[in-house]
Structure formats: structure tokens, C-alpha cells
């Protein structure tokens, strides 16, 4: 009974939180509506060229300067070709779904593809599940603007797989069945443990899914001019379709196809970049250092920190750390979340249940590591290539965050051969981005619905007494509901800053899930008390720290910053000869700062300024999660859990008595 109460209380809390979150959107959304309709009214062709338009309100206020800046670049996609490519991807994946639906008969088929995925296939699928549009477009963008720091940032995403390979992959294959709850509930009280494991899985998946959905909507709007809401609904319908009808088989193949497309795109583009560099890596780096545009860009970047650099020194600085990642503790904190969090991500863990043996699980991680690592090394070439051929100034004029660098590079490299090839290549990479989004969100929806349907419905509510037909039905209904919620959250979160949600998802996985997984598999004294306190403290600590971190918006801090900008700009204006006005960019900044300076109030949790100075909570929340798990286990010792350790330990090492994914 108590378990039901706990569960009801938790779901109530979650829905209240969701409602509060949805409320949050209304105010800014209403305020921004007129601003959004303004660029749309200028006609469709212009829509693709307008980079993310949070400044749209400001641009209306500027006194229309005549000529645009000469560095202004545009990213124009050929809509016919691009939409054609999207259609091809949709058609292929739909074909996969129809084929997969025929083989999805049992729960094992739905959640784990009947254990019938080979090591190699799973390796590609892991890579496809893991590399989001953020790594595809974002990291090369960071490299193109900040050089070395972007490259350094990418390293942690690969190193994370050492933890997956050495600590979790094989034991999970041997000891689990479909979900995180299966691993954790082996020698503990199954019901409360499953309920909490499911809540944590849903939390991690929701954070990650929200970031992906919002990113997808904005990307589609930018690339092919499909309005944000339409994009979210379109992506959502496809994702629900893959998961509901095709289950794990379809999701796996969508991920494999995506990984293949992504690698071919990255490989082809880097090949073109290397052809231009004459396959001479040393010459390639010398070109970076001696590029006047990069030198100019770097001198402006370091000037903000009060450092004066120019010429070759500035160029060389591009290859040195510290242009972007300025807070070392934050970096270490993020590194910890990546290295430990990847191994606690439910959608990654779930992939190990699709292979038949521990050997196949091992092989799949190694293959995934070569694909992912290879991809990040190619990304360096793309990022530096973009910096050389497009110039950082050109890249920021399209998108200040540099997210369009890879796509612009594809168009230019192709167009250097023939204009139509530029369009084709750009369209191909847009399609890759599209496939990337679909593959990642499908994996997340599947993981979240497995937690709800398998852990909560089948094992908590129905006590494990549900036949195959009922289990598959429950899984499909849940996937549909989870997907629908994903679409609604995506629609509601349009105006929210969601960038920190990815880091938050990894932090929760690293602080909540991973400690309890490791301790369950390797520590004799671990038990129910430990699992619950570890999951609760790890999850709440990470979310709580982010709520009081600089990731949230602090109106008073924004206003203080804006006042400084206003003062600086007015000084600049005063220094100008009479009759002359500020440049377009400065005028825009002034208008925006004047609006921002009026802001007042507190952050979501009622703070004037951040309590916790790091953006990534891992460095505090991970030790807290481990400590809570250990103390919780010691506080509530359980003989049965200790006695069953031999069984868990022998099983996870040898695979004896492994829950065969194929059951009839």
C-alpha cells in the first residue's frame, strides 16, 4: 500500500511541476508573439536567412540603416532538394517501421528487439543514439569560433565510453532485462525500487528530450523555413510512429541509418577540406594561424579579458586553451557528469539488452567508441575548416553560436565544385541533421516508456502478472502518451533557454543513476534503502543546484549588465561627431539593453543572484549521490540483499541464468 502512496505522491509532484513549468511559458510567449510575427510577415524567402531572432523586437526599434554590413552572409537552402531529401529519409525509415512492426510480437521484441541485434549493429546504433544534433552542429561551431576549447570540449564525450565499457555494459547485459529498474530491483524490494528508478529514468529522458525537441524545432525553422510549431509536431509524429509501431527494432535501425548518414556526411566534408589543404595537416594548422580574419577575431575575443594580441600571436592563440571555457571548475564538473553520466543514461543502458551476449555488448561499445571518436576527430577538421574558409565573422553573422558552421561549409565546399553540388550537399547535411534528431528522440521516448510500462505498469501495478499481449499493448500506449507529452513540452518550451537541460540530464544520470547501478553490481551490503536514498538525493541535488545556478535567468543581474551596456553605448555615441549615429549593431545592442535594464524581479526560485556559481552541478551532486547511496544502505541493513549478492555477482560476471530476451 505504502508503495502505491509513494508512487501517487511522486506522480502528483511531477504533474504539479509540469503544470508549473507550462505556466512559466505563457507570460514570455505572449510578450514575444508580435515580435515573432514580424519576420514572418516579411515573406517566406527571407525566413530562412533570418538567424535565431530573439533580437527581432530590437531590430524593429532600430532606425533602419540602409546597407547591410559587408560581412553579412546567408544560409539559403534549396527547398525542393532539401524537402526531397527529407522525404527520402521519411520513406526509408517508414519502410523500416513497417518491416519492424511485423516482428514485434512480445515485450522482449518491443523493448529489446528480441535480443537479436548483433554487436556491430548495436555499436552503430549506440553511436546513432548518442550523437545528437548538438554534437554534430554545435561542437564544430564551437571549434570554428573558439578553436582549441571546442576540441577539448568534445574529448569528454568519447572518454565517457570507457566507463560504459569497463563498468556497466557487460554486467548490465548479464543481470538485466529491459530497464534500469530490472538491474536495481534484483536483490531489493522490487516495487519501491522500480518506482523510483522509473521516476529517475523519466526525469532524465524528459530533460534530454525537451532540449532535443526545442533544438529540432528551431533547426527546422532555420533550415527549411517550416514554422517552429509545425516542425515540433512533425518530428513528434514521426518519433511516436517509429516507437509505437516498430519498438526497439525500428528505433535501432533508425539509429543505424542515422549513424551511417552522419559518418558519410562528416567524412565527405572533411575529405573536401583536406583536399583544399593538400592533405598536409601541418600546413592546415599554419593556415589557421596566419589567417587575418581568425587573427582579428581572436584579438577581439581576448580584448574582452583585457589582453592585447595581434598578428601571428593572435592566430596561435586560437590553438591554445581558454578562449571559451573560462571556469576550470565548471569544466571539471561537466567532465565528471559526462564520464559518469553516459553510463547512467537510460537510453544508452537499454541498448545493451538488445544484444544476445556479454561478448556482443563488449564488441558493440568498442565499435561505438571508434565511430564516436572518429566523428569528433573529423569534427575538428570541419570546425577549423569552417574557420579558414568561412571566417569566424561570416559564421557569427549567420548564427552567433556558430551552429550553422558545418552546414555553411558544406554549401561552400560543394559550390566550389559546382553551384548545384553546393545545394545538394547542404540539403544532404540538413537531412542528416533531421535524421539525427529523429534517432535521438526515438531512443529517449522508448527508454521513458519502457520505464513507465515495464517497471510501473507491469511490475508495480500488475505485480508482474501481464501476458505478452497486454505488455506490448501497455508499451505502445505508453510510448504514444510519452511522445504526445514530448510534443507538448516542445511546443511550450519554445521561448525557454533549454541549453542547460542536456548538462542537467547528464548530471542527474551521473549523480542519481550511476552510483546505485555500480553499488548494486559490486557492493555486497547494498540494498533497498541505498537505492532509494541514492536516487532521490542524486536527482534532487542535481536539479536543485541547477535551479540556483547561473543557468537560470536572474532579472536583476540581467538589468545590471544591461545598464553597463547602455552606459558604454551612450558614451560611444557621445564620442561620435555630431549628426552621426551608431552603427546598426551598436544601435541594436543599445535598444535591447535599454529594454533589459528595466527588468526586475527574481529567478524561478525567488533569488536575486545565483547561490551556486557553477553551471554544472556534477562536482557536488555526484559525491552527494554516492554518499547518500552508501549511507542509506548502511542505515537500513538487509540480510536478504546481502545473501543474494553472490547470485548477482556470479550472474553479472558469468552470464549464468541470464534472463533470455527471447521468452515464449
Amino acid at each position, binding site marked *: 500500500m505504502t508503495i502505491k502512496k509513494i508512487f501517487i505522491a511522486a506522480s502528483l509532484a511531477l504533474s504539479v511541476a509540469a503544470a508549473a513549468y507550462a505556466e512559466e511559458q505563457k507570460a514570455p510567449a505572449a510578450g514575444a508573439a508580435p515580435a515573432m510575427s514580424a519576420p514572418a510577415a516579411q515573406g517566406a524567402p527571407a525566413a530562412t536567412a533570418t538567424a535565431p531572432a530573439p533580437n527581432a523586437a530590437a531590430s524593429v526599434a532600430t532606425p533602419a540603416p540602409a546597407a547591410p554590413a559587408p560581412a553579412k552572409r546567408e544560409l539559403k537552402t534549396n527547398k525542393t532538394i532539401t524537402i526531397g531529401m527529407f522525404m527520402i529519409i521519411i520513406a526509408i525509415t517508414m519502410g523500416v517501421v513497417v518491416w519492424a512492426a511485423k516482428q514485434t510480437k512480445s515485450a522482449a521484441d518491443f523493448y529489446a528487439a528480441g535480443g537479436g541485434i548483433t554487436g556491430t549493429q548495436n555499436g552503430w546504433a549506440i553511436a546513432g543514439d548518442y550523437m545528437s544534433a548538438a554534437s554534430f552542429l554545435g561542437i564544430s561551431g564551437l571549434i570554428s569560433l573558439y578553436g*582549441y576549447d571546442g*576540441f*577539448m570540449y568534445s*574529448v*569528454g564525450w*568519447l*572518454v565517457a*565510453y*570507457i*566507463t560504459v*565499457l*569497463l*563498468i556497466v555494459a557487460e554486467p548490465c547485459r548479464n543481470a538485466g532485462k529491459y530497464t534500469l529498474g530490472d538491474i536495481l530491483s534484483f536483490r531489493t524490494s522490487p516495487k519501491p525500487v522500480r518506482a523510483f528508478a522509473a521516476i529517475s529514468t523519466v526525469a532524465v529522458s524528459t530533460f534530454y528530450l525537451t532540449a532535443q525537441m526545442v533544438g529540432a524545432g528551431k533547426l527546422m525553422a532555420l533550415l527549411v523555413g517550416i514554422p517552429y510549431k509545425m516542425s515540433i509536431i512533425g518530428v513528434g509524429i514521426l518519433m511516436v510512429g517509429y516507437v509505437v509501431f516498430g519498438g526497439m527494432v525500428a528505433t535501432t535501425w533508425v539509429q543505424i541509418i542515422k549513424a551511417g548518414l552522419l559518418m558519410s556526411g562528416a567524412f565527405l566534408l572533411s575529405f573536401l577540406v583536406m583536399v583544399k589543404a593538400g592533405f598536409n*595537416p*601541418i600546413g592546415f*594548422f*599554419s593556415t*589557421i*594561424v596566419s589567417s587575418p580574419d581568425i587573427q582579428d577575431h581572436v584579438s577581439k575575443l581576448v580584448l574582452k579579458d583585457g589582453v592585447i594580441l595581434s598578428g601571428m600571436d593572435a592566430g*596561435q592563440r586560437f*590553438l*591554445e*586553451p*581558454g578562449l571559451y*571555457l573560462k571556469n*576550470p571548475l565548471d*569544466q*571539471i564538473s561537466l*567532465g565528471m557528469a559526462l*564520464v559518469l553520466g553516459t553510463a547512467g543514461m537510460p537510453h544508452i543502458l537499454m541498448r545493451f539488452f538488445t544484444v544476445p551476449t556479454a*561478448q556482443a555488448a*563488449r*564488441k558493440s*561499445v*568498442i565499435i561505438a*567508441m*571508434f565511430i564516436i*571518436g572518429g566523428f*569528433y*576527430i573529423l569534427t575538428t577538421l570541419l570546425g577549423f575548416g569552417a574557420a579558414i574558409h568561412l571566417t569566424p565573422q561570416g559564421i557569427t553573422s549567420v548564427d552567433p553560436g556558430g551552429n550553422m558552421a558545418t552546414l555553411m561549409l558544406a554549401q561552400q565546399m560543394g559550390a566550389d565544385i559546382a553551384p548545384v553540388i553546393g545545394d545538394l550537399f547542404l540539403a544532404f547535411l540538413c537531412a542528416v541533421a533531421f535524421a539525427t534528431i529523429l534517432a535521438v528522440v526515438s531512443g529517449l521516448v522508448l527508454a521513458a516508456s519502457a520505464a513507465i510500462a515495464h517497471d510501473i505498469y507491469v511490475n508495480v501495478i500488475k505485480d508482474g502478472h501481464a501476458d505478452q499481449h497486454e505488455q506490448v499493448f501497455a508499451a505502445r500506449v505508453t510510448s504514444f502518451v510519452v511522445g504526445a507529452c514530448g510534443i507538448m513540452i516542445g511546443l511550450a518550451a519554445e521561448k525557454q533557454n533549454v541549453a542547460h537541460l542536456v548538462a542537467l540530464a547528464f548530471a542527474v544520470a551521473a549523480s542519481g543513476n550511476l552510483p546505485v547501478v555500480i553499488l548494486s553490481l559490486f557492493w555486497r551490503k547494498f540494498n533497498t534503502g541505498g537505492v532509494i536514498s541514492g536516487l532521490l538525493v542524486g536527482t534532487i541535488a542535481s536539479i536543485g543546484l541547477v535551479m540556483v545556478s547561473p543557468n537560470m535567468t536572474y532579472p536583476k543581474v540581467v538589468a545590471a549588465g544591461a545598464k553597463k551596456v547602455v552606459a558604454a553605448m551612450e558614451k560611444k555615441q557621445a564620442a561620435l561627431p555630431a549628426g552621426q549615429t551608431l552603427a546598426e549593431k551598436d544601435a541594436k545592442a543599445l535598444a535591447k539593453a535599454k529594454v533589459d535594464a528595466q527588468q526586475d524581479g527574481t529567478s524561478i526560485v525567488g533569488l536575486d543572484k545565483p547561490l551556486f556559481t557553477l553551471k554544472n552541478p556534477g562536482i557536488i551532486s555526484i559525491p552527494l549521490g554516492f554518499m547518500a547511496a552508501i549511507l542509506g544502505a548502511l542505515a537500513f541493513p538487509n540480510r536478504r540483499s546481502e545473501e543474494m549478492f*553472490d*547470485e548477482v*555477482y*556470479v*550472474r553479472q*560476471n*558469468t*552470464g*549464468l*541464468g541470464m534472463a*533470455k530476451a527471447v*521468452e*515464449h
Partner: protein
Amino acid sequence: MAERQYDWKAIAKNPKFVELHHKKTAFLFGWWIFSCVYYFLLPIGAAYTPGIFKVKMIGVINFGYVFALSQFFVSWGIALYYSHVANKDFDRLTRELIDELHL
């Protein structure tokens, strides 16, 4: 599916299993800690000893770049080495254990 009954306690005390367990634990946690230390040297070094990272090694390519690139090869190296040892030793020990138990 009829679950086979195993005497887990007896298997856990089997000398073959104990050997497997010792070898595996030492290998896995040892290399895991090594990879973590090696990885965290990158952000820590970049932040606190930027001077070393700026030392030019090949043309304009500096130590920082080579070190970051080496992270990829070190990770791959550990993965391949683990795969080699696991296929050769751990899997063999597991097979021998299972044979011995007549399973």
C-alpha cells in the same frame, strides 16, 4: 521458461570464479581509474598550466593539441586492450568455470 536452479554461493566460492573475479576487478577498476586520471589532466592542465599547453611541437601544432588528440588514441587503446584481455582471459576462465560445473 523454466529457471535452472544454481547454487550461487557454491559458485561464488569456486576457485575458478575467485580467480576470474580477482583478475577482472583489478583490471577493470585499474584501467578505469587510469583513464579518468588521464582525462582530467586535460581540463586541469588547460586551466592551471596553460604554459605547457602552448609549447609548440610540430610547426604551429602545440602540446595542448597533441595531448587532446592523444585522449582519443588512449581511449581506443584501452578499449582494444580490454577486448584482447577479455576475449583471451576472462572469457576462457568463464568457459572453464561453466565446464567444471557441468552446466
